[in-house]
């Protein structure tokens, strides 16, 4: 035990003698004149002879008062015990609430354990210290910013809920934490996580970073992919199960078709390996659920859903002078009905509902058709971009590593002869870049999705590579959502959006938990011909119903699955390597870092001593009351005696 303000003990040296002096003064008792002390003298002699402890009892009050004073002084000196935890006065708590924190190896979940840890840290916060709570993993939230109100902090921590969406990327949170820490002295960053996070590489946190790992389990098996494709006679189900653990494991995979069990498969998978199943299913099946039985640490990834793709095909208008690559590529994509239009066509009468996507391949139209647009090799500027020239032999490189447009697409082998130099508006994001300018830009503007591929497919070897159909598939998934098998699958928190006819008056979404939300209450938004429902964090089947008046005109299902390898690898990291200003990059928190103050306990004891002192002071009155009570009880028992 040590003291934070040992100087406060000096108060004892001042107040102590004062109390003793006052007590000695008090010892001059109240004087009372009596006829004679003759009787008293004899009795007091008796008493003193019989009870040598009488003197001590007379001093009991003094002793209690001194004890009370000492306790109060001790509380003022703020004693503490060294404990594992934090020591900074400006604490930034980063709590991981990604899907992996839903693992049940720390019952009930890792997130609960993390919350408990956070409560401990908040309790350890020195007086006057402030704390910020950042929830990361999925959407980053800051439920409590730089407050010293412990109750508010606890409430903020309590409010943090598991988020299935997004990845455990600490970059954003750490950047914010670093910025907060840089503003104040004596800052400390506490990361409460299972350690399965992405760390920024180039960030140096200007504070001490402590990492509090949560979780024990390492074994986890997950349904890592599921897809339902229409086949020739029926439907084909593709299920992939991956063992993310460190030991081989056997689990049974149960398949449910529209809620009824269909079949079960015993799967034994080596550590780190996966196993795929391809199963033919009857054509009328609408919802497939794959469920791994048995309890493993993470239940969220043991279930996956697939829905039968929309039967009606999406019409895609291809305005081209003739492009065999494109036509072949589009015809391979399921759920698309490609209508080729001659390049000379200038007017389009179909509505968005009829033709949602138009591909403009090397044509320049005076007026753009409605719906989503894919420009390929644009000849001149449009409202969305300007063409300012050409680029010769652009070096193709992806703009960022993780763009969904480039999923499974490798561009390293692709060469381009010549591309248009385009300058997109600020609606778009560059997906593929080159030295001279962007090669692929996608984006959304006024409810309309637009993609621009700035080179002619004939002047590139892209169509000859495996990357082309994949890129085309990704682009069409973006431009024509709701088509194809992928469209009906969403990742958690990915907004569910659907092209709407103008005649639709209401959209209802039935969530996996059975709750129904409607566009009438504003929970489902309809804007610019799209119905958008953003709260898709819960895993399972979402059913979207489109209503005209009171009648349902369309029903579509969407499956939200976790499918996040980063989250399914639940083995807890024991250390995170984060560069800190001290030069250290280990974040294992050390013993004796924290001060666990316990002056409150001391103050509580002082309060009890105060109560005892008061009782001792009033012992006569209490004895009198007791006597009276006993007498009364005696009277009640024997009313005849009186």
């Amino acid at each position, binding site marked *: 035990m040590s003291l934070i303000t040992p100087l406060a003990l000096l108060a004892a040296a001042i107040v102590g003698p004062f109390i003793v002096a006052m007590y000695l003064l008090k010892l001059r*008792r109240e004087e*009372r004149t009596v*006829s004679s002390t003759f*009787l008293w003298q004899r*009795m007091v002699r008796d008493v003193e002879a019989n009870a040598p402890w009488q003197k001590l009892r007379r001093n009991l009050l003094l002793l209690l008062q001194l004890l009370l004073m000492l306790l109060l002084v001790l509380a003022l000196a703020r004693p503490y015990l060294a404990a594992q935890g934090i020591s900074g006065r400006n604490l930034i708590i980063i709590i991981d609430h990604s899907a992996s924190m839903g693992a049940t190896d720390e019952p009930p979940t890792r997130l609960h354990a993390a919350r408990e840890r956070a409560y401990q840290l908040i309790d350890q916060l020195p007086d006057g210290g402030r704390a910020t709570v950042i929830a990361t993993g999925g959407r980053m939230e800051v439920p409590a910013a730089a407050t010293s109100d412990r109750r508010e902090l606890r409430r903020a921590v309590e409010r943090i809920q598991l988020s299935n969406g997004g990845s455990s990327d600490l970059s954003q949170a750490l950047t914010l934490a670093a910025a907060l820490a840089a503003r104040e002295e004596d800052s400390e960053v506490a990361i409460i996580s299972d350690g399965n996070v992405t760390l920024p590489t180039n960030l140096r946190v200007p504070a001490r970073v402590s990492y509090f790992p949560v979780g024990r389990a390492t074994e986890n098996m997950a349904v890592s992919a599921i897809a339902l494709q229409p086949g020739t006679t029926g439907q084909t189900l593709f299920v992939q199960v991956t063992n993310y653990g460190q030991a081989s494991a056997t689990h049974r995979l149960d398949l449910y078709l529209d809620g009824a069990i269909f079949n079960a498969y015993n799967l034994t998978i080596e550590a780190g390996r996966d196993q795929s199943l391809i199963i033919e299913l009857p054509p009328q099946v609408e919802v497939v659920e794959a469920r791994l039985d048995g309890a493993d640490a993470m239940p969220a990834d043991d279930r996956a859903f697939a829905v039968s793709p929309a039967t009606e095909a999406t019409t895609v208008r291809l305005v081209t002078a003739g492009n065999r690559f494109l036509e072949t590529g589009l015809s391979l994509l399921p759920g698309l009905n490609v209508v080729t239009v001659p390049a000379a066509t200038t007017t389009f009468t179909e509505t968005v509902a009829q033709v949602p996507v138009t591909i403009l391949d090397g044509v320049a139209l005076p007026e753009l058709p409605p719906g989503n647009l894919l420009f390929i090799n644009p000849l001149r500027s449009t409202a969305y971009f300007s063409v300012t020239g050409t680029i010769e032999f652009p070096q193709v490189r992806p703009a960022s590593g993780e763009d969904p447009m480039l999923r499974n697409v490798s561009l390293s082998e692709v060469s381009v002869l010549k591309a248009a130099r385009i300058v997109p508006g600020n609606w778009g994001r560059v997906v593929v870049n080159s030295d001279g300018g962007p090669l692929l830009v996608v984006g959304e503007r006024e409810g309309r999705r637009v993609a621009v591929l700035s080179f002619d497919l004939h002047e590139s070897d892209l169509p000859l590579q495996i990357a082309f159909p994949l890129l085309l598939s990704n682009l069409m998934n973006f431009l024509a959502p709701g088509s194809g098998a992928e469209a009906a699958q969403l990742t958690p928190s990915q907004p569910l959006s659907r092209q709407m006819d103008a005649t639709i008056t209401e959209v209802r979404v039935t969530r996996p938990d059975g709750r129904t939300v409607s566009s009438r209450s504003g929970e489902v938004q309809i804007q610019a011909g799209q119905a958008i429902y953003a709260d898709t964090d819960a895993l399972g089947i979402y059913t979207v119903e489109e209503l005209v008046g009171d009648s349902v005109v369309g029903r579509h299902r969407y499956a939200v699955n976790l499918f996040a390898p980063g989250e399914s690898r639940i083995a807890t990291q024991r250390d995170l390597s984060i560069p800190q200003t001290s030069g250290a990059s280990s974040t294992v928190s050390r013993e004796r870092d924290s001060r666990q103050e316990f002056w409150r306990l001391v103050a509580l004891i002082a309060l009890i001593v105060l109560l005892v002192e008061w009782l001792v002071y009033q012992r*006569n009155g209490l004895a009198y009351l007791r006597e009276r009570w006993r007498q009364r009880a005696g009277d009640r028992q024997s009313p005849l005696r009186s």
Partner: protein
Amino acid sequence: MNQRASEPLLESAFLRQLDRLALVLRRPMAGDIQGERRSPRRGSSVEFADFRPYARGDDIRQIDWNLYARAERFYLKLFVAEEELNVHLLVDTSASMDWGAPNKLHYARELAAAYGYIALANLDRVSVTAFGAGPGALQLPGVRGKRGAVPLFAFLQRLQPGKHGDLAQACHRYIQSARATGPLLLCSDLLDAGWKDALSALASRPFEITVMHILAPQELEPDLEGDLKLIDVESGAPVEISANLDLMRRYKAHLAAWRGEIESFCNGRGIIYVPVDTSVPVEEFVLGRMRRRGVLR
């Protein structure tokens, strides 16, 4: 006390009741002059007592000649002497008596007055001695007859509390100086370490002693609370106590034991012990309790 001095010590109605009372004596007592009480001496009353053979020097006028005629020997005819009684009233006026509500000294005055009045009404001689005011005792030499009630009451009303009285010493001195024995009424609180000595001294001569042990209700049931320093009104000696229920209980037990000790001490010496609580009105006490105790009749 002074404002009380203007009032009569005893009410006239009470005095009329006292007229009907008399002192109770357990044995005849000798007096100085002729009175109305039987004396142990043979005297000249009309009441025959005894015969005795004539011895030389006897008064020949007392020879019973009728008996001589029959027995031819001289016999003296003896009669019971009737003499007055010497009633002694001893009032303790030490400072401890001037305490309590009702005041103990005032109560002692009233008791002494009542007792004295009864004696005067029976033509006895009453002398009052107040001790407590220093070494010298204040004395009212004997008064007789109902006329004597006036100086008696005046004397009693004049009594002022003294400072410190040594009860034993005062009693010794009184015993040595008193000429005739007789009924003796001691009004005191006996709150003196020498109470045994004092009572022994009084009992050493054949007085008929009645001890009026006067205590105020505040002494019988003290109402004390907390840490106190008790100051003796006589000696000024302090005693520190922490008054609580337990101490009060012990005090009462102690007081009862002390009174028991005095009573048994008195019984052993033929002293009548009468405990007095000043909260009882003096009329009720004299007419009721004292008659029951066999002091008055």
